[in-house]
């Protein structure tokens, strides 16, 4: 009946002892407050990150869950990882079946088919672009265009000619340079263009073979393609929104580039760099103080030809006139050279004072006359895929527009995904049909090549010692290479430009996003999904958004891991310090303990006294630490933490993180600290309990 009174006494003892040993209590309390502060603060930050990530990622690409082949060799990674090696996540051969089955699960709202593959776009250099247009114009008999484009070729040839001097100086093969110069001279001559009119094809081949290679090489762009049902994708992923152009119409082939890819990869290099510099300056960087940025500005200016190349002579003249006027307003002395090359270079060589005006001029006057984007919205682009079958597959697909995921606009990782219809995607992915396999077998059979491994190639091929030279039948009839071959592209392929929207959900996909009606029922949905997969033997595995996001989820897990290790280390240190302090305190209090023991306190009472002391200290420190952490989180929650790097944007679910603190974070922090306090006092308490009552009799004051 008096346990309560005893406990009260213990509590009084605990508080009084803590008070009596102020220095010790302060030291331990400080450690515990600090520990709680860190645990609660970082726990809250991490939960906030998880929360915003979960929101931004589930509403962008992953859905609440992802399903893919249970026997996949690699793990699904919706965001690109470090390695560019191909990942094998297996296949979902019959998506319709999977969709039908999984939609039976209560909480599932939608199953979105997906597939990721890499497509390459050959970003041709400017002259390749022009020559191709010229070739098309010739073929279609558009003589006006031929004239304009022809002039553009001459502009480019002229500018390449300008570079030849520098090239001749460093070349190891002067003969070659001489040949190149001759070719350019020819193209710049009137005669060449007279001949062009009579025999344009030969002239075009000459330009292709002799002039185009002299220009800087084009770029090969690697684009990450997510094949899906675009309509459904737009509907189910709330983060998705269109920026430029229009949505891929239902039942049509098409590609939506991510705005990030569009601006950071596909845009004209000069303009892109100019954008970067402008934004840096807008964000407060001073050009006059940042040498790296200055270097960038100089590089942009050096690359002015990327802009000039794109201007027709008329456009050039117009730009030159406007530039001349603009320069006057900018107080540039009239004595400066006023040819277009010099003026564009001047325009691009910005400083803190003129960057605003120059940037505006560039976009108002020059940019509209350029192909700002290598793969412009509204035009068709050729994508190449290294298909599963090994054959290279090219598809032509229209870029309908660009899109973004809200909150993830400035994330390169999220921005790596370009959305396309699954029908086109399947072609790029290129799994072979049975008919196609049979066709290969029949071709193979007609020749019947013996397989010889590298190891025994020499013995197999030369060990026989037979006749090396064989005379062919001299007057064999001329063979017809086209017998049995059909090179014409079928009508059916052209018709495939549009398709029955239902086909998107029929056939191959690689993975699928599961969207829940009620996200709070996640845990149950997971069990239900697994049961359904089991029941219908779909052979799929289910992963949550965090796992599905690959490297991003991995980062989060790593961060959690780091936090836990940090907590562990902090507490290990705390444990050691508190333990030592408490052992010292025990020794100091030996007479007191001995007295209590002598007058009848059991061991457990002594132990309880010590543990309760630390429990009280832990609780008090935990509360103080949590309050401090909560205050910091609330403050950060109102100002926001800016994302320090691109990768952080995806974690922060936007450019700034507005952290919140939850009861769970606090309970976890306090619980942990109390646990550590008690743990750290177990040994000292044990030592105290071992103090013999006889010491009371030895006590001398």
């Amino acid at each position, binding site marked *: 009946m008096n346990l309560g*009174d005893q406990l009260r*006494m213990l509590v009084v003892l605990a508080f*009084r002892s803590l008070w009596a040993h102020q220095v010790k209590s302060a030291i331990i309390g400080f450690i515990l407050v600090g520990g709680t502060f860190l645990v609660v603060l970082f726990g809250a930050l991490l939960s906030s990150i998880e929360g915003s990530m979960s929101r931004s990622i589930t509403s962008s690409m992953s859905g609440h869950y992802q399903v893919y082949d249970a026997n996949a060799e690699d793990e699904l990674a919706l965001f690109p990882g470090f390695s560019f090696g191909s990942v094998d996540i297996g296949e979902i051969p019959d998506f319709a079946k999977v969709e039908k089955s999984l939609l039976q699960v209560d909480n599932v709202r939608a199953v979105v088919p997906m597939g990721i593959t890499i497509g390459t776009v050959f970003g041709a250099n400017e002259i390749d672009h022009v020559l191709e247009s010229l070739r098309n114009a010739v073929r279609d008999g558009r003589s006006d265009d031929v004239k304009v484009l022809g002039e553009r070729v001459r502009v480019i040839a002229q500018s390449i000619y300008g570079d030849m001097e520098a090239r001749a100086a460093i070349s190891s093969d002067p003969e070659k340079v001489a040949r190149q110069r001759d070719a350019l001279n020819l193209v710049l001559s009137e005669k060449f263009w007279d001949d062009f009119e009579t025999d344009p094809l030969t002239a075009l081949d000459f330009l292709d073979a002799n002039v185009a290679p002299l220009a800087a090489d084009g770029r090969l762009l690697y684009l990450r393609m997510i094949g899906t049902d675009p309509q459904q994708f737009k509907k189910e992923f709330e983060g998705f929104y269109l920026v430029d152009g229009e949505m891929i119409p239902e039942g049509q082939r098409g590609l939506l580039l991510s705005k990030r890819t569009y601006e950071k990869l596909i845009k004209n290099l000069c303009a892109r760099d100019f954008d970067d510099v402008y934004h840096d300056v807008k964000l407060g960087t001073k050009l006059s103080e940042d040498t790296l940025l200055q270097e960038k500005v100089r590089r942009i200016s050096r690359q002015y030809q990327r802009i000039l190349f794109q201007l027709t002579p008329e456009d050039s003249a117009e730009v030159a006139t406007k530039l001349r006027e603009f320069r006057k307003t900018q107080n540039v002395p009239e004595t400066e050279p006023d040819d277009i090359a010099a003026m564009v270079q001047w325009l691009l060589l910005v400083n803190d004072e003129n960057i605003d005006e120059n940037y505006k001029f560039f976009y108002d006057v020059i940019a509209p006359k350029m192909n700002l984007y290598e793969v412009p919205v509204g035009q068709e682009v050729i994508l190449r895929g290294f298909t599963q079958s090994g054959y290279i597959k090219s598809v032509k697909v229209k870029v309908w527009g660009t899109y973004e995921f809200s909150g993830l606009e400035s994330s390169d990782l999220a921005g790596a995904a370009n959305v396309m219809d699954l029908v086109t995607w399947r072609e790029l992915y290129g799994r072979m049909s049975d008919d196609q396999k049979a066709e290969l077998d029949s071709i193979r059979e007609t020749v019947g090549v013996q397989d010889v491994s590298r190891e025994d190639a020499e013995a197999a091929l030369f060990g026989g010692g037979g006749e090396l030279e064989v005379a062919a039948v001299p007057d064999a009839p001329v063979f017809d290479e086209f017998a049995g071959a059909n090179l014409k592209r079928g009508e059916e392929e052209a018709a495939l430009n549009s398709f029955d929207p239902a086909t998107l959900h029929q056939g191959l996909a690689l993975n699928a996003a599961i969207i829940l009606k009620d996200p709070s029922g996640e845990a149950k949905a997971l069990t239900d999904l697994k049961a359904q997969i089991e029941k219908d033997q779909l052979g799929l595995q289910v992963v949550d958004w965090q796992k599905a996001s690959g490297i991003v989820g991995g980062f989060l897990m790593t961060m959690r891991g780091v936090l836990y290790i940090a907590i562990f280390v902090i507490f290990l240190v705390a444990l050691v310090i508190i333990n030592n302090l408490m052992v010292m305190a025990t020794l100091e209090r030996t007479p007191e303990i001995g*007295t209590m023991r*002598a007058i009848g*306190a*059991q061991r457990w*009472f002594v132990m309880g006294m010590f543990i309760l002391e630390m429990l009280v200290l832990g609780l008090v420190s935990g509360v103080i630490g949590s309050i401090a952490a909560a205050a910091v989180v609330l403050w950060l929650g109102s100002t926001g933490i800016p994302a320090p790097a691109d990768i952080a944007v995806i974690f922060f679910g936007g450019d700034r993180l507005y952290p919140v603190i939850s009861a769970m974070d606090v309970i976890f922090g306090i619980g942990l600290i109390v646990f550590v306090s008690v743990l750290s006092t177990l040994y000292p308490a044990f030592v105290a309990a071992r103090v*013999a009552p006889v010491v009371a009799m030895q006590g001398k*004051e």
Partner: protein
Amino acid sequence: MPAIVQLTNAVKEYPLGKLVVKAVRGVDLSIERGEFTAISGPSGSGKTTLLNLIGCVDVPTSGTVQIDGQSTSALSDRQLTDLRLHKIGFIFQSFNLINVLDVYQNVEFPLLLQGELSASDRKKRVEEMVEKVGLTTQIKQRPNELSGGQRQRVAIARALVTRPAIVLADEPTANLDSATGKAIIDLMKDLNHKEHITFIFSTHDANVTSRAGRVVRVVDGLLAQAAEHA
């Protein structure tokens, strides 16, 4: 009725490095209920050791200790603790009060450990006890606010509050001036008289010894001739 304390050939040895210190070397001692016994002897003669054995805070190396007819040799630490709590009260040379508790709480402490009385009974008992030692006005004070004599009074109150069969006091007056020491002995003697509590205390002080009902003289760990007073 058996003796309240019965030592039979009690030996206590302390290992000290390679040596063995024989603090008590075979003591037969029997103390009756209600006796007011002084244990005297020169410094180092074994008085404290003897009290330790009687008080069950230490166990003999050989021989037996019987308290109230019960042999202690087979008891566990828990049982010995319980025995001390219920049967023995301690008064220490250096008072050994719990400094973080006030007078009232110090006196209440053993009662709480016992956990037998209701809160109100406990309160009554404590206040009564404090009054007996004459500290009612200082009841809310902490030990460090009290004089040596007052502290020892608190210690006496604490020792007596559980109404133990025996009260042991190891040189209760050593840290007090002679007047205060005398007052403490008077108090003890008074309680011995009124409440029939058995007191066993050690002392150097001949003045104190002279007031004992019985004097047990210890020399070199052995009992010398025992002089009985009236």
